[in-house]
């Protein structure tokens, strides 16, 4: 035992001394990213080929953990770049002064994609690929259960979809957060929440990782998933029996890259950003395992048949304008609302939704206006939100989520209020539906 421990210690020492040597190598750049190996590997290979002598070191973390990591390590950053999808995360980093300004050399990249500005107007982060949000489904699952193919978010609220839909928790997934925010901005605060909650009544599960949703759809554990487009495209590219649709209320937002403030290898970091935005870097995005939408319109000339092109496809022109500032202000509030009203009350919400579907089914056969009115009231109760749009971005509520800086309401207090609001409303709705059920019979 002692001998083997000593051996291990010697080994340890050997690699211990080897590491500083690797660090000393000038050509290195470290990137923190939420992208999978399938995305980073081809880009890494192309980048290292284009810049001989520079080695790209990839650290994989989910977006939120990455933000937290940069924050925790700000006193002496060991990473050079942050590279992820959600623009919100970059807003957070920017507001915490964890990014540095830069002007990329790349040309031919327009200011906007759809209605969305590609780059941060202040020059702290840059879009390199676009992604839209939509619905993916497993064709085998849908076929076996004889389910319809959806087109709009609202479709997912219909009775046949009950218990067949998955979504990631917006608090855990930057991309889902954007999806929710897109619906809220596109349909308005109150109507948006109504739509979201109507859908949520049909959720089978709410995952804690973005990839949990496509994983569940790919393996056929759930039928439908609310996902970012490339999850579906890359699954198709890998041969899974899945399809994808962009609903009309969606937006195409850029995935971004930014240079960390006080980065140890700033020069190499700049090289990486420039490469990513160059035609050579943009072309890599077309690979089957990546399938993201390049931000350089010229690159689409090399894209395969049927590849969505947000610069020419008219659908993308009509997509929602996304207000990053608005989104940034209420991020925590929206996520917490979602969790408290939906994630942690899912059983109640599902049970009342199921009853509504049943009653509505009966009403279709034999109408009863009184019952219909009750169902409408129940829907309104379900859809109700404890805070208005103004309150959601008010300083008062936001303060509760910003930690120990100011005195005021504690997050836990507010959460408990919201949770009991939802619980009471769902119970009331349930009572109304029960009443409607007796009438419908």
């Amino acid at each position, binding site marked *: *035992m002692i001998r083997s421990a000593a051996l291990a210690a010697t080994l340890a020492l050997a690699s211990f001394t080897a590491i500083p040597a690797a660090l000393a190598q000038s050509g290195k750049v470290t990137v923190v990213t939420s992208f999978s190996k399938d995305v980073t590997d081809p880009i890494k290979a192309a980048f290292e080929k284009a810049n001989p002598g520079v080695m790209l070191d990839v650290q994989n973390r989910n977006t939120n953990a990455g933000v937290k990591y940069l924050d925790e390590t700000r006193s002496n950053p060991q990473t050079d770049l942050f590279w992820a999808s959600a623009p919100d995360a970059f807003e957070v980093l920017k507001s915490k002064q964890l990014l540095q300004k830069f002007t990329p050399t790349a040309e031919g990249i327009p200011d906007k994609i759809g209605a969305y500005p590609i780059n941060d107007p202040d020059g702290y982060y840059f879009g390199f690929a676009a992604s839209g949000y939509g619905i993916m489904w497993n064709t085998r699952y849908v076929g076996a259960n004889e389910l319809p193919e959806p087109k709009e978010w609202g479709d997912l609220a219909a009775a046949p979809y009950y218990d067949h839909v998955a979504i990631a928790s917006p608090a855990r997934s930057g991309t889902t957060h954007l999806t929710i925010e897109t619906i809220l901005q596109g349909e308005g605060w109150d109507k948006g929440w109504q739509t979201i909650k109507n859908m949520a009544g049909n959720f089978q599960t709410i995952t804690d990782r973005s990839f949990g949703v496509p994983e569940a759809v790919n393996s056929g554990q759930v039928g439908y998933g609310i996902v970012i487009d490339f999850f579906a495209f890359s699954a198709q590219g890998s041969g899974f029996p899945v399809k994808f649709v962009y609903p009309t209320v969606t937006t195409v937002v850029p995935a971004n890259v930014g240079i960390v403030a006080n980065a140890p290898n700033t020069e190499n970091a700049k090289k990486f950003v420039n490469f990513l935005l160059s035609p050579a870097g943009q072309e890599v995005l077309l690979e089957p395992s990546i399938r993201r939408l390049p931000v350089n319109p010229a690159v689409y000339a090399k894209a395969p048949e049927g590849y969505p092109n947000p610069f020419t496809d008219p659908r993308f022109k009509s997509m929602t304008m996304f207000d990053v500032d608005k989104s940034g202000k209420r991020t925590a509030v929206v996520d917490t609302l979602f969790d408290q009203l939906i994630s942690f009350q899912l059983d109640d919400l599902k049970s009342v939704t199921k009853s509504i579907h049943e009653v509505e089914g009966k009403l279709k056969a034999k109408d009863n206006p009184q019952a219909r009115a009750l169902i409408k009231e129940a829907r309104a109760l379900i859809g109700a939100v404890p805070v208005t749009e103004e309150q959601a971005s008010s300083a008062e509520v936001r303060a509760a989520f910003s*930690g120990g800086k100011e005195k005021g309401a504690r997050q*836990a207090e507010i959460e408990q209020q919201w949770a009991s609001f939802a619980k009471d409303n769902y119970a009331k709705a349930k009572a109304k539906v029960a009443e409607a059920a007796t009438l419908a019979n």
Partner: protein
Amino acid sequence: MSLAFTQAPARRRRVPGTTGQIALALGLAAFLLAFLLVPVGSVIYVAFTEKGSGSFTLINFADFFRTDLFMRSFWNSAYVSAMTVVLASLFALPLAYITTRFEFRGALIIQTLGFVPLIMPPFVGAVAMQLLFGRNGSVNLLLNEYFGFRIPFMEGLNGVIFVQAIHYFPFILINLSTALRNIDRSMEEAAQNLGSSGMRMFRRIVLPLAMPGYVAGASLVFVKVFDDLATPLLLNVKDMLAPQAYLRVTSIGLTDPMGYVIAVVLIVVSVLAMWVSALALKGRDYATTQRGGGGLAKRTMRPWEQVVAYGVVGLILALVLAPHLGLLLLSFATIWSFSPLPDGFTLAHYSRVFGESSVYIKNTLIYASIAGGIDVVVGTAIAYLVLRTKLIGRHWLDWAATAALAVPGVVLGIGYLRTFYDIRLPDGTPLATMWIVLVIALAIRRLPYALRACYAALQQISVSLEEAAENLGATKPRTVRRIVVPLMMGGILAGFVTSFATAAVELSATLMLVQSNADAPLAYGLYVFMQSAAGRGPGAALGVIAVVLVAACTLLSQYIIDRNQKTTGAAR
């Protein structure tokens, strides 16, 4: 004679330990302080601060008890932990009973296979379980096709109980088997002599005697399930305590104290559970104190008994090894979606990971063996101080090390970043970015297992064996080296294997502390693969490699333990 002592000489001060022992205790205390208490404290002190002023308060705990969600999570966690113990016992009891009580071919293989479920690689294990037992997994698809119904194995809390029981039942199996083997044969013979036999004797004599082992394993399972966040999260069960803590700590509301309040609750409940189990067993550790023995007499089974026994063992093994079978299938699968079996099979995933994974494998082996090494050294030292000295406060070392059981990996990870990031090495890189910090985090998380194993091993060594060595001129350190450690070797190796195997597949602390791909262990590689559709197969292949690797190391040390046991003979 008494004249010489009319002036009574000063009463001799009895020293509680030698200088070496005191230095060792201080060293261990410093180690635990630096790598456990301070980092964890740096995270959880937030739980006790008032929002805004930062002054000390307990209001956050009041919030905890006022919030429905947290109370619901608390009771769910308690329920799941308790039911997991029940289900895990149902798995473990027949295996332990059959392999120790009867002449049973393949007992060693069963004992080894019974260990394998502990080595469940993150992510891929859950995916494999879903593909087999999920709502549209192989079993349910077949059931639905032929019988028109499904069994909700993996739904909600029941799913957590099912997966956790499969994952953690080896803790009960290992402890129970050891306890059963250590029972003095005369205990059983006395019962037979007084007219007791069969199941009745098993229930009234054998089981009570094995109780300490069972309770040790069961309490470990309870605490592990109570503190585990990976399984509920992967099954998307959120209303349990550990997932709540994790979600709050890692979500955007970073400075919110509730995550840390939950962490404190987790730690308190875990320590309490260990304490209660220790209390329940106080003065009842009789299995090992008997002399002579040689374990229970093994009986040859009648033919029909053999059929039943093999049937039961086969069924349990099939169930508990199903995740690994699923993993194996997945690693060879082309596409596996909404079907009982994959569409086709391929070797491509292995060829893809083969080149890339060698660095992960190398790192994993180095990290897990150093972590295991640290664990058994520290575990042996603490066990020695607690059992063999009278140093004041020695029990605190034990309690502090055991508390590590309850510290969620992510809390430890953040604590390490906070504590060690501002300590710079000469070349300016922060200490927290050194891979050795990751290794220490892995070691600290597993220290409680290793400590228990070392503790049990030392408890079984008669003190007179050490006194004999001292009497013949060996100093304390020499005695430890030449007598104590060789005799504890079985227990030490068992502790090492447990630490090694679980460290090799640990993810939560790893994710927080891995600084570069070149330093990353297997679990991290798995995580990276499992983020994309195309990575599922290679991820599974990597998972299979991890399991095979760890299982091989386990078998090897089992073999060494066995040989060791044979050479030292049955005599203790």
